[in-house]
Every structure is written in structure tokens, then in C-alpha cells.
């Protein structure tokens, strides 16, 4: 094919280039800048080399936050994905129930994240919160401010409440794209309910589930606002996830160099894990 070379075409991408430069490249380079140098303010910098990176990777504090974050992501994926599929399977396919269900499902996704945090912060309080009060009255010892276990339960419940809808909506989109003929053929072939799910519905949901898992993993691995509002990372450090730790380091302790190094490591980990997820899942699909 003949290509026409016209250098004016570069002008067409220029606005986007400028936009991306200001919103992503320049801030990122600033972070790289901080991660390799030390400063005591007044714009004086000393070369630090890999020192910050060594400190971050050598600190148990970083690995603890990382471990908590991985466990958190694993738990919410293990709950939200099956639960989301289950809800999507039971949603109506036609009639007035469809818009009602869709709107109900979309509601949690429309609430600003800090508001979600505030809702659950109040919801779980044992003195005035609807949940906390009645759980406490029922004789179960529940206090997310004091007990790390209760704090985890609260944060996980909140995330499930907030984000299962996303899995539901994506799965539902996959389900409604299946033509009726498939279900009819399954009836003719005498397939059981389980076989219909296993051989018709699940394969058709494959792609959207991949997206759902990827999105949920990335988001949960970067979670900040909601647990910050509810528990502030406590009690102790029990709900201090990576991003909360990062903010503590950068803004609480003003340790800019180490924070910059940590954020780069953090970024690379998310990139790497997402890439592994994606490759494994697409390969499995292609390998079939």
C-alpha cells in the first residue's frame, strides 16, 4: 500500500501530546527526579542514586503494606466476582425489572468515593450507626475503631457494596448478548442448569469477566479514599494499604525521596501484575 507522507499530520496529534505531557509525562518525570535526589528544600538537590529505592525495598513497613494490599485484593476478588456473576444470572432479561435492576446496581458506582467512606464510617458506628448499633445489640463484639479484624470486615464489606455492581453490570452485558437460540438448543439437547452455565454462559462472559477482574484488581490495589475515610489506616497499621502508606510517607513525614521511590515501585508492580493477569487470561482463552 502506498503511504502518503505529510509532516503536517504531526500537528494533528500535537494537542493530545501536549495534554498528555502536562498530565502524565511531566509529573512522572518529576517523581523520577525526586526518587534519585535528596533535598532539604530551597530547591537545593543532592544526587542520591539508588539509595531511596534500597531503603524502600529493604523496609518491612513497605512489604507489610504490600502484603495487606495483596490479601485485600485477593479477598475482594474472591467475593465480588462470584457474587457479581450470581447476581447477574438472577437479574431479569426483559420487562420492567430490567431498568429497575440496572439503576439499583448502578447507584453505588455513582456515589463519590469519599462519600462511600463517610456512609460506612457512620453506618458502622456502634453509637449511632445502623449496622454497628444492631450488631452490637445482637451481642456481637464489633468495633472497627479498636479491633483490626472488625476494621478489615468493615472495609471489605464496604468495597463489596461499592464495587460488586461493576462485576454485575459487565457480566450482565455478557449474558444479554447470548442469543435465545443458545438456550433453546440447550433445552433441546437436554442440558442441565449447570451445563448451561458452564458451556454457554461462562464462555460468553469470558471477555467481560477478564475486564472486570483486571479493573477490580487494579482499583483495589490502589485503594485509598474509602479506607482512609473509615479507618484512617488503623487501628495501628492494620488497614494501611500501599497508597495510604505512600501518602503518610510523602505528606505526613515529608520524606519526598523515599515516597517518590516507593510510588515508582508501586507503579511498576501494578503494571507488572496487570500485565501478568492479562497475558495469563488471554493466553488461556487463546489456548483453548
Amino acid at each position: 500500500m502506498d503511504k502518503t507522507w505529510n509532516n503536517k499530520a504531526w500537528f494533528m496529534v500535537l494537542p493530545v501530546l501536549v495534554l498528555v505531557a502536562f498530565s502524565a509525562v511531566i509529573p512522572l518525570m518529576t517523581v523520577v527526579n525526586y526518587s534519585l535526589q535528596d533535598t532539604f528544600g530551597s530547591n537545593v538537590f543532592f544526587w542520591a542514586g539508588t539509595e531511596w529505592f534500597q531503603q524502600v525495598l529493604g523496609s518491612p513497613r513497605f512489604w507489610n503494606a504490600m502484603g495487606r494490599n495483596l490479601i485485600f485484593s485477593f479477598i475482594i476478588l474472591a467475593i465480588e466476582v462470584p457474587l457479581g456473576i450470581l447476581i447477574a444470572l438472577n437479574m431479569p432479561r426483559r420487562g420492567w425489572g430490567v431498568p429497575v435492576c440496572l439503576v439499583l446496581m448502578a447507584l453505588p458506582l455513582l456515589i463519590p468515593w469519599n462519600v462511600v467512606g463517610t456512609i460506612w464510617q457512620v453506618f458502622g458506628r456502634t453509637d449511632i450507626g445502623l449496622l454497628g448499633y444492631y450488631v452490637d445489640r445482637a451481642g456481637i463484639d464489633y468495633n472497627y475503631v479498636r479491633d483490626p479484624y472488625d476494621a478489615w470486615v468493615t472495609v471489605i464489606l464496604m468495597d463489596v457494596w461499592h464495587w460488586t455492581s461493576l462485576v454485575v453490570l459487565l457480566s450482565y452485558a455478557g449474558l444479554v448478548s447470548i442469543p435465545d437460540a443458545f438456550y433453546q438448543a440447550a433445552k433441546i439437547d437436554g442440558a442441565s442448569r449447570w451445563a448451561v452455565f458452564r458451556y454457554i454462559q461462562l464462555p460468553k462472559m469470558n471477555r467481560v469477566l477478564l475486564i472486570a477482574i483486571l479493573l477490580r484488581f487494579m482499583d483495589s490495589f490502589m485503594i485509598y479514599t474509602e479506607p482512609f475515610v473509615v479507618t484512617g489506616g488503623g487501628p495501628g497499621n492494620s488497614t494501611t494499604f500501599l497508597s495510604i502508606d505512600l501518602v503518610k510517607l510523602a505528606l505526613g513525614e515529608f520524606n519526598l525521596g523515599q515516597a517518590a521511590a516507593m510510588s515508582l515501585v508501586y507503579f511498576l508492580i501494578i503494571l507488572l501484575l496487570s500485565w501478568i493477569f492479562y497475558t495469563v487470561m488471554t493466553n488461556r482463552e487463546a489456548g483453548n
Partner: protein
Amino acid sequence: MARIDLDHIRQSYVEHPRSPDDYALKEVKHTFADGGAYALLGPSGCGKTTLLNIISGLLRPTEGRILFDGRDVSALSTQERNIAQVFQFPVVYDTMTVRENLAFPLRNRGVPKAEIDRKVAEIIDMIDLGDWADRKAQRLTADQKQKISLGRGLVRSDVNAILFDEPLTVIDPHMKWMLRSQLKVLHKRFGLTMVYVTHDQTEALTFADTVAVMYDGQIVQIGTPAELFERPSHTFVGYFIGSPGMNVLPAKVEGNLARIGERTVRLPGRPGGNAAAITELGVRPEHVRVGREGMPVAIAKVEDIGRHRIVHAALDGHQIAAIVPEEAELPAEAHISFDPAGINLYADSWRVEMGA
């Protein structure tokens, strides 16, 4: 294998049907004989797929009963009716291999493994997918997928009937021909009751011994291909079957003469019943002769389709088509006449018998 009786079946998609127009199926009463090969022919929206889904049990009819060998199965599920059905668009189980796809209906019914292997091998051979047997079905082309769908329909030999819902739509013409012949062979070999829904007259006429033409929610004529061609009992059948379809002209009958505008046509006999009710005369293009005698017409267009030519002309403002041989000459001042044996008369669209 079974005889299938449709006992006054009516189907409506409206919740409380009142007028006849609310019914997708107006009233169907018909028997499919055991081991017969039937075609349901009609344009889209005439209710043929609805009728098929009622037979297979995917749909419950609003009114009426379905009997298999005299046993009422109206309340039974698709699975209990033991029916095989092949759909218009290929349905395959993507994650299974071709072999597993074909084994699926048998496995669900707990057929012993040795038996499954034997049947599946036989079907794979028949649909000619031997080289693909252990590949995932997802990778196959549309017509290969449709062959799997057909195969899944044919793999159970104990079914009461096999229903086909325009199964060859996505298959290319050459393959269509082969698959259709294979279906015929199968029908002869196993004596299965087969019902084949299509809007393609060639497909219907070559597949079936008996063709039921459906129009607007009812079966308008049931007959052999020859009967449908020579004696269409409804003007729709005349129009729908044949290429081009039957010419239908407004006409009045007096004795054994029909008047079309100012022209007069001699009929082969006197119509029985109420001759005054007759409003239309039908004659197939094959029975229209173009020459120097008869009624003067203005030729509008001549299509040469290879085997013969189709002449489109106007007779006193009415469109009329005639089929003439390739070598026949067309006179400058053309006239047409009708072969008396090819004339049919219609009252309110339904055919009126003529006596000698």
C-alpha cells in the same frame, strides 16, 4: 418417531387476544404422518417458526393441543418430548471440541460411553468433519458450525421428530445442495419424521414430499410440489411459488367465459359454486403464450435468464409476465393467449373448482 397431530393450535403473543389479528398463528389443524418429510414454506413473519417452536415445546400454544402418536404432549417440556431441532444460526458450545459438541445431547441423557463413541463417529463421518473432530468448535467457520448443529440434531436416533428452522441460511450454495441431499438420504434410511421450515421454495420443494404453505398465520395449502404449482388454492401460493409467480388478474365470469376488462377468455369448464363471487383469474407465466393471436399487449421488458426469457407486458394496464423459449420470436404487435389448462379462478383469494 411419531405421528404429530396439531389440534386447533392458536398462538398469540398478546396477553389478551381479542381479534383474529392478535394471533400470530390463526388456527392450525394438521397431521404430520410418522416418517414423513414435510416443509413449512412461507415468507418471514407468517408464523412458521412459531409453529415449529410449538411442536418442539419451546413455546406453549395459547390454545389447542399437540399429540404425539395420539398422546397429548401439550404440557410436556422440550426434553420430555424428545425432539431434535436445528436453528437458523449455528449454535455450538465454544469451549468443547467438535466431538464433545456432538456427544453433548447423548451425554446429557446418560447414554453409555461406547454407544456415544459409535454414534458420534458415524455423525462426524457423515457431516465430513473428521479432520476437525478434536478441535475447539469456536475456531470453525460458520458453515462448519452449522454442520455441527445439524449433527447434534441427527445424533439421537430415537427422537420423535427432527425440526429444521431454515438451517441452511448461512451455508454456501454448493454445500447447501450436498447437505440437503444428505438429509434426504438420512430420512430414507431412518424413516424419521422431519419438518423443515424455509422461505426458499427450491429448498422446500426438493426436500419435502409434502409442502405446507403458510401465509399470515395459517396454512393456506398442503400438497405435493406439483399440486402447489398447478393448482394453487390461494392466490398467495400462486404468487409465492414459481419464478416469477402466478399472474393474478381481476376478472368476471359468465358461464364458461371470463372477462378481463374488455377482453374475453374461454375457460376449460364452468366454475362450480357462486360464479358471481369470483373476482380474480390466475395463470402462471409458463401457461401464457406470446404470439400473433389473442389479446393485444404492450411489452415493457424482456429478461433473458439463459434457459428461457421472461416477458413483462401490460394487458389493459395490468402487469402480466410470460415465459417464452429462448429461440421464440417476439412479434412487433404482440398478442397473448392463455393455455386453458393453466387457468385458475379465485373468489376472495381462494380457488374455485371448475367443472367440465
